[in-house]
């Protein structure tokens, strides 16, 4: 079966890969590009663990074909931290213990970052509904919501 050649941009860097037309963007990120930060929790868009942004739009990478990445800009959890220092969301997640096992954390961070870029001052309810597609089985979401709200507050002060 012939493979498709794809040129794309990932976390600001040009990337190229060959993929089977059936492979998802998640498969490509994890298996062909070594970016295993995005996780497959379901493969059907129900858990959000594979969240990335595609041209700035939050999506489940399991619901995007690798071939669709041609000419697009993709951002993953590996690109959240600007250089050496952690992003405020990352710091607040550690500080608030907003993770227990940590498998949902990359997807939630990508999703929360997309939220705060769109809405720097979300209410608790807005955060909860925005993140409704990111399942966490460990925390009961309490500390996640606090971490996002706290990061948002800090980012507003700096901005």
């Amino acid at each position, binding site marked *: 079966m012939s493979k498709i050649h794809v040129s794309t941009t990932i976390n600001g860097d040009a990337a190229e890969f060959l993929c*089977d037309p*059936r*492979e998802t963007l998640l*498969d490509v990120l*994890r*298996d062909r590009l070594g*970016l*295993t*930060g995005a*996780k*497959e*929790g*379901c*493969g*059907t868009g*129900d*858990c959000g*663990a594979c969240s990335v942004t595609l041209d700035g739009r939050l999506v489940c990478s399991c619901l995007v074909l690798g071939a669709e990445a041609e000419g697009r800009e993709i951002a*993953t*959890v*590996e690109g*959240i*931290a600007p250089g050496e220092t*952690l992003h405020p*969301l*990352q710091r607040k*997640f*550690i*500080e*608030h*213990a907003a*993770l*227990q*096992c*940590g*498998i*949902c*954390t*990359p997807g939630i961070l990508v999703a929360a970052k997309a939220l705060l870029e769109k809405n720097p001052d979300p209410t*608790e*309810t807005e955060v*909860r*509904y925005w*993140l*409704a*597609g*990111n*399942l*966490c*089985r*460990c*925390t*009961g*979401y*309490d*500390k*996640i*919501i*606090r971490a996002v*709200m706290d990061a948002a507050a800090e980012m507003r002060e700096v901005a």
Partner: protein
Amino acid sequence: MALDEYKPQKGGDQLEQGHAFKYVGTRPDRPDGTDKVTGRARFGADITAPGMLHGAILRSPHAHARIVNIDTSKAEALDGVKAVVTRADFSAAIQPAPGMAGEMWNVLENVMAGDTALYDGHAIAAVAATSALTARDALKLIKVTYEVLPHVTDVDAAMAADAPVIRDGTADKSVPPGLHPNVVRYHQSGHGDVEAGFAEADLVIEDSFTTEATHQGYIEPHACLGTLGGDGKGELWCCTQGHWNVQKICAALLDMETSQLRVTASEIGGGFGGKTTVFIEPVALALSRKANRPVKLVMSRSEVFRATGPTASTSMDIKIGMRKDGTITAAQGVFRAQGGAFPGAPMEFTAMCAFAPYNLANVHQVGYDVMTNRPKQAAYRAPGSPMAAFAVESVIDELCNQLGLDPLEVRLKNASREGTRASYGPKFQRIGLVETIEAAMAHPHYSAPLAPGQGRGISCGFWFNHGGETSVTLALSEDGSAQIMVGTPDIGGSRASMALMAAEVLGIPYENIRVTVADTASLGYNEVSHGSRVTYASGLATIKAAEAAVRELCKRAAAKWGIEEEAVYWEDGYAKPSGPNAGDFEPLHISKITRSMGATGGPINGHFEATPEGAGVSFATHIVDAEVDPETGSTKVVRYTVVQDAGKAIHPTYVEGQFQGGAAQGIGWALNEEYIYGTDGRLQNAGFLDYRIPVASDLPMIDTVIVEVPNPGHPYGVRGVGETSICPPLAAIANAVSAAAGVRMRNLPMSPPRIFEALEAKNG
């Protein structure tokens, strides 16, 4: 409750020990935090090996079927396919035996079906190929001929006379004569005379309850990478709660010596009991052995639901007598649990936990372990206990309603205390149930007004907790920092807890301690991370290992000073002479001693191996407010408070996290989570779309109160906290919903159609 009402709970003020802790009880960042927020942490599916193949497993579409023939020839002929395995590729030496005595055979049978497919999703064959897509394509080329057999998936139906027999001869000697062959184990316990007790009661309520099977629902599907070469030596990387157990089982299933297989635990993306056994790991190794290349196997989400451990489903009858003053005079329960097509439903835990919170003169409980055509149940957070609490606490709630008594006052009046003879036999040591009830009564939540349409429910809950076989080693570095090797995978921040306890003993900064989860070749045996045992048992072993290192540090100081070892003590990271008589020496910092340790007697390490048996039992009391839409039967949890005895909270933030996580899972179990089977015996909802775990917008903030009644069995008073938190929610929510809807809910989950039906029945 809303965010702005949140006040952090202070821990430790009830601590009875005089000891003032410096590190324990603080809330530092977890050591693996950066790895986990940057995507760097490596979970089960995040690893590759040179020459790696991808595996895939063919699963039965039938609930019960004889496997007449498996034709793998077309799959084997497909380009890229390197190995196909069936049951013939696993040990033939393991034989079945009745009850739990046959557990190794049960695990083998579950990992790969023998002559019969026992449930929808049962593994039949597996392939390894050069890509995951090729492996999946190859599965479609395997032709299996089935002879479909009658099936049963419901626990009560499986006990009925006309139920199909799943495997005759599985019942062990505990089962009384006359029961259906699907009843494979039996338990009874209790004391006193329940009939006499019921005769003393002013009100006796007898009622029946059911709970559906729920899944642990960890977000990380099972994943592993196995290598088994021609030299007979194996390597396995997998997400597991206990890699020594994986080593033991895989070696047995593949007829290997344990020492020939090294197992490394990856970071683990949730387990909750469901990753205490094996499913795909022996299959990856068998494929690797056949292909002579590393094989990676990753389950899909639907495979996780169809073929890994959900919890048992139950059917329960409860009878409780109470006097007008709230005294319980007698209690009796019958607990029927199905755990799939194998023995092992935790009915004895259900029976033993049911009445444990109460000091009862007359109590009797009976349990039945029943086989059905469902996947083999696996442990799920306090296995068996939440269902029991649901049934028992619902009846107590109804007794309180009918007698006009305050539900917490009644719990307090009957509460088990130190010295109480437990419903399951032993006498309780120091326990904290009373303290949790009193804290709940004092909590503003309990006296807050309810809005129209809302109801409040409370419940107590109990879990044993566990110690278990444990090994820890601690090595001091030249600079005076410490490295700890533990064998219990870090499921929810235990590296932080271990580092805090070691810091406390060594008197060195938390940041100077690195905690590593060692592989099976690098440390002595460790039991699985289960039974809420990690902070207790690995923590105890860490403390003891650190104390051993401190003794050696003191010895080196004594030698340097030329005084007796006994004349040196350790404080805040320094060896100090114990008094004027010992001599006047400048205290020696740990780094001074470690820097010269090579010349003063060699490396300084500490280690500890034991099976600590002092895991203190733990109790919790939960308060919940729920709102029911009478037109739709929809329930919203509007406020939730967890009060639980932690013994001593080592890292209070992660203790709160365990409380909140247990409550959230309980909310899911109570309201919407369930295994739904069709009449064909196939699972209808093998995905997160229709297996409805709570999402962020479903839940309120979850308030926590950490009660600390020290466990006498741990140096710092630690009790396990992970499991008890899921025991009360089912009952507390059922009581809240019943109050809000005005109708008693006896069957979980209390999904909208169920509540609607109950309301319809009530309103006529």
